[in-house]
């Protein structure tokens, strides 16, 4: 954790040059009125990646672009779009990189195949070690 301690600097401490002076997007820091919609938006935001940060969701970042993305998400949810539609829209533009939600695709199938394999291997080991003894 040494490194993480030293370098949460990169995250927390935003260098002061290179920041815009415009106010944040309207819904970057404002919740939706309807708690159910806000919950949907929040769930979606926690699984979308902030593109300008190193490794965070847009729900956890103060970067202006993350704020803009949050605003987009909230406005669209309020307008009635489904989270999956919004996610698809973003993936059309940025690829799998922008989404943390695991979806099976040509690029990600090992992420699902390997846990399945692990389950089989674990079962096999347990069966051999425990099942056939005594």
């Amino acid at each position, binding site marked *: 954790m040494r490194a993480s301690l030293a370098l949460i600097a990169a995250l927390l401490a935003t260098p002061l040059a290179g920041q815009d002076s415009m106010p944040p997007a309207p819904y970057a820091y404002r919740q939706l009125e309807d708690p159910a919609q806000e919950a949907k938006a929040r769930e979606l935001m926690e*699984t979308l990646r902030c593109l300008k940060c190193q490794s965070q969701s847009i729900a956890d970042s103060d970067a202006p672009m993350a704020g803009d993305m949050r605003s987009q998400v909230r406005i669209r949810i309020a307008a009635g779009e489904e989270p999956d539609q919004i996610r698809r829209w973003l993936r059309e533009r940025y690829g799998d990189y922008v989404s943390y939600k695991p979806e099976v695709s040509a690029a990600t199938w090992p992420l699902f195949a390997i846990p399945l394999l692990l*389950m089989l291997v674990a079962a096999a080991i347990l069966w051999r070690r425990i099942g056939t003894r005594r």
Partner: protein
Amino acid sequence: MIAELGLAALWLAAALAALQLVCGALAARTEGEGSEVALITRPAAVLQGALAAFSFAMLIWVFAITDLSVKLVATNSHAMKPMVFKIAGAWGNHEGSMLLWVTVMALAGGLIGFAERRLPERTMQATLAAQGFVALGFYAFLLLSSNPFERLPIPALEGMGLNPLLQDLGLAFNPHTLYFGYVGLWVAFSFAVGALITRQVTPDFARAMRPWVLGAWVFLTLGITAGSYWAYYELGWGGWWFWDPVENASLMPWLAATALLHSAGVLAARDALRAWTIMLGVVAFSMSMVGTFLVRSGILTSVHAFAVDPERGSFILILLAIYIGGALLLFALRAGTVAEGERFAPASREGALVFNNVMLSAILAIVLLGTLYPLLTEAFDVRVSVGPPYFNPVGAIFVVPMLLVMAVGPLLRWRHDSLSRIGREIALLAALVLASLMLISIVGEVALLPLLGLALAGVVAVGSVLPLRGRTLRRVPLVTWGMVIAHLGIAVALFGMASDSAFTRERLAALAPGQAAEVGPWRVVLNDVAPVAGANWTALQADLQASYQGGKSISLRPETRTFWAPSQATTESALATRWNGQLYAVIGEEADQGRWQIRLWWKPFVTMIWFGGMLIAFGGVLALIGRLSTDLKRRTVTRRAAARRAETRALLPEPAE
């Protein structure tokens, strides 16, 4: 002068490590005892420890006096820093932290060379040789590529200062914990390699290794817990774990160490699980090194990209390849000849621990997979993101069964038991699970994973104290108390995690002075936002008054701070802690019309996460004390018995011709 002394000591220590390697290797080859070189190995290890410690002391000295002719001091320190942070600056950088690691390794090796006598001497020689081999690589890394004592041709006029974010006591002293953990695992690794080389995989080997694994595990637990809490209050969004690659790099050794701990316990007690223990001994240290590599090489995208330097990364990778590759090769060649241990029935404590091992290994594999996968795809120019939505559910597949078995495992007897004997306890726990699941899902809208977490937390908590039932508490061994408290700590931490996921309330408000916002049972009023100044920063501080369910007001003062050397901005959150949770307050930017963004969270029972972590570590400490005192007693008893035998023999008359 001081720096040169430190550097010279480091070179000498490296030379001794080489000596240790050579003598230990030669001594381990000879079948009988009495090889002269064997007499050199242990003193070499002890002296190496002393020299490395001296070298580190020299480094601290140059930082304490701010010797600006030393490059490391010039780039990392400043004459105006408080003394405690000047000293902390010694290890607050790549070179210094590597020297710290090497010093701890050398001291541990010296201690083992001095005190460990349980194992056959040949195995000890092999173990010390393995230690010397690994230490040599680290010395080479330090001396050839990351010299902490490098001088500047012209001394700097003033130091560049330590990152103000690091001028926090918690951060100043936290790095030790993880390094101590890694060093303990290095010791376990060397024992495993020594045992493999000499084919002596015995309960004594496990007993020698166990306190080191326990100690390492306690430190890792503390390090992870502290790091998580630090991230929680510093990052300003209330998150405490992100499955970030650097976090995973510290979690993976912990998972391996947990499995190793239990496996070594079985080997020590029942002489079973020999191959597992060896394998885990190698894997645990491998994970430490892989983690170190991932963090320091810069090949992973992370918030925490350490001083990125591909040259350093390559060096570590080469060391990794030699040591871990070598150990795994040795394992592949020799493990087949390790004799089978004792047999045991499926329903037995050994059986439950095998299950535990397999599950922990699977979780470890998943964390490793998720962490490395983006790296793999990037090699093909495809970029993917793997984060909490993957790790949580996929990890849960293995965590849930593991916790269920953990609840009943300690109740099983060794070697051979039947589930019907503990039928009543199983029924109780099953009923508890079902009742919790039903109750919680009726009471609140809780997602599946937090729901499972809450239910299992209760079950594990009850299961952890069941072994105490019917026993005289004063006479329960310390080791058993350790197990009970550590398992209870898991339950408590799990409860905190699930509760945070399930019941956190968030409120983002734009408040003008005088306005209030509500979050959960709290009502928070913004009084004022005013500038404040500190040693090397200025800040805008909000004066909030928060009251819980209309009770007495508490003052909270979150800030946005701006440091000026180097120029950085941070958020300082303000926390109000109650027994049943925390109010987390952050001030953001000024919104329009004189209103301020205030972010508020009510997080029920979130502190249980770190309290649980401390309990786990405490349980480990109790177990460690218990083991060490038993070992000491055994040694005293053996020594006294030997002395008595010698006396008796002296009293007897000479045997007649």
